[in-house]
């Protein structure tokens, strides 16, 4: 391989610069892959499991209707919980092995391609390595999928469990306040629109949207900003490129949830 002096020097200069450069420049994406989870869940075994689950749901429905008939709301709630547990157990039985196989296939492909993190396709707008086909090929093979020997190395992609952040008292209170406001506003809107002409309605809608937006800015936005800042600070302190929501993470990545929760408390 021929390496021009100019290029080598540029690279060496760049590498030397890094020794004193802020960590903000330390970004690399060579270990990030993505997968279309929808395509995987369209595979025949998943479809068959879904059909079985739907059939089971349908078979339970008449039993449920018969069971709650004439019962008090409390009893109905208890029966509903009981049936939901049955459904969850069936779901677990039908899908657990499939999900485990998919997860092992993703890990195997990621390890094979030197990827330390795999995310859902929906959050990648450009670039990255699409491993969907590779994973489907592995899953389609007969016999068990061989898991990789090593677990993924620490990645510069972090992830956070948003549900834990939403459950924090401050966030929960803000969400409740906003939802209550929205319901009241919606009721007002319905009353205001009654009997109005089509010409009068757009102004009312505009006012509704404006009030909703103002309330959101007042109640929700400060929390969103604080959360975003906390995540960004932690990401920078840990040398991460960015942090995604846990629901979009498929494999690998660095969990920063505990740090963010601590920072927000």
């Amino acid at each position, binding site marked *: 391989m021929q390496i021009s002096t100019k*290029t080598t020097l540029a690279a060496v200069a760049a590498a030397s610069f890094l020794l004193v450069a802020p960590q903000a*420049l330390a970004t690399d994406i060579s270990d990030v892959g993505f997968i279309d989870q929808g395509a995987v869940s369209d595979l025949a075994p998943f479809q068959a499991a879904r059909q079985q689950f739907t059939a089971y749901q349908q078979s339970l429905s008449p039993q449920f209707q018969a069971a709650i008939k004439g019962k008090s709301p409390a009893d109905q709630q208890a029966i509903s919980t009981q049936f939901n547990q049955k459904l969850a157990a069936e779901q677990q039985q039908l899908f657990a092995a499939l999900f485990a196989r998919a997860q092992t296939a993703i890990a195997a492909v990621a390890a094979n391609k030197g990827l330390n993190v795999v995310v859902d396709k929906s959050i990648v707008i450009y670039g990255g390595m699409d491993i969907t086909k590779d994973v489907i090929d592995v899953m389609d093979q007969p016999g068990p999928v061989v898991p990789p020997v090593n677990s993924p190395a620490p990645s*510069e992609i972090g992830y956070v469990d948003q549900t834990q952040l939403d459950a924090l008292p401050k966030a929960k209170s803000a969400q409740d306040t906003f939802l209550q406001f929205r319901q009241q506003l919606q009721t007002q809107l319905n009353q205001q629109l009654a009997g109005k002409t089509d010409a009068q309605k757009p102004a009312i809608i505009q006012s509704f949207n404006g009030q909703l937006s103002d309330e959101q800015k007042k109640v929700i936005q400060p929390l969103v900003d604080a959360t975003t800042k906390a995540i*960004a600070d932690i990401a920078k302190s840990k040398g991460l*490129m960015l942090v995604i929501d846990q629901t979009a993470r498929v494999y690998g990545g660095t969990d920063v949830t505990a740090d963010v929760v601590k920072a927000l408390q």
Partner: protein
Amino acid sequence: MLALSASACAKSNDQRAGSLLGLNTPGLNGGGAAAGYVDIDKVVAAHPLNSRLQALQDQITLLNAAAVSGPTPVTPAQIKAQDDLQHDLADAQTAFTQSLADKQNAYHLKEEQADADITSKALGGAAAGPGGIVGGLQADFQRQMVAMQQSARATLDAYRSDLYKQDSDHLRHVQTLLSQDVAAKLRAKDSQLSALETAYQIHLAQQDQDQRLNLKAKLDNLSLSPADRQTYANQLQAIESREASLTGQMKAADLVTSQAYGKQVQADATKRFNAERLATEKDTNVKLAARQTELESSIRTQAMALGGQFQSKLNSANASLSGNQKVQSQLADVHAKILAQYQADADAAMASYQATRKQLVAKYSAVARMQFQDNVALSMQAEQLAQQRKQLYDGIVSQVQTLVADVARRDGVGIVFGAIAGAGNATDLTDQVIKEAAALPSPTSQPTAPGG
């Protein structure tokens, strides 16, 4: 980490440096090693079509609000009118749904028949039946399969009848032999017992012979007194009676023995017959199963041959049809034509259905002297608008993705995320993409008003 960081930095200074240092992983789509992110919501908000998106959202909000803020009937007449209205609207909906399903079915059959005619003609066949050329081939295949199965079934039935007849004859013969054997054994036993009885009688007679002769000699004496004569006669009679009694006892015992033996012989014969019957049945079932397997195997082989012929004909027909541009064009024309006919028909039916709903609302509004509202119609309008909004939004996002790719390539960013919880060291491309999006040409047309 240092090596990776060196790669990233080298990338931003010189696009070739990273790969020349051998630090990049091949196969990545991106043009650089840096990671970036874009706030899609902000970009969409800056897009020239966002006002149209918002307008559609406002219309949807309006329709949804109108659906829940409709007038409420108060008087009994108004309540009854509303009930009647709902009833008639539900009938109209059922009729419309059924009519649409009938139309779909009719057009589907029409297209199938038209396709069948085209393909049949192209393959030099007569007018195609239902299912077209494939249907014809399939029907032939089915007919041959059915004939083959019927023939096999008849063969098996005949074989079964033959076996059953053989079994029946054989068992009857066995029964006869066993009966003869039983009779012979009984006869032999009777003869044996009878001989023993005779021997016993002789033995008794010899045993009493001296005494009997002595008594007879005494009785022959004419000078015997009547009293003595009577005594001797009684003694002789006692000897005769004892012998007769002993012989009678033996015969009675032999009769019991003979009867028990008869029963045992009969039971043995029955047992042997049943064993023979079971063995025969088992043998017959084995033979039948073997024959059935043989026939099934033969049918399978023949079916495979038939299936192969069918598939071969089908492949040949398909190859001939798929390579025939004229046929393909005709099929596409037929599809387009019939789809257009169906669409027009369905649109007309939908228009008629909507008009019917309007008429019903107007009619019952007049009856109730209040303006009723058709929430289903409002919901349908809202759904149409939501679909329009989704199409517009998807179009905007697709356009934004192209802009993001352009910006990423230009800035040497290898991967761009569209939804993040927080940024670290990745590059925020949002402002650049917003600038590009805002520079897109503005729309000229306005969104369609609901129901318009």
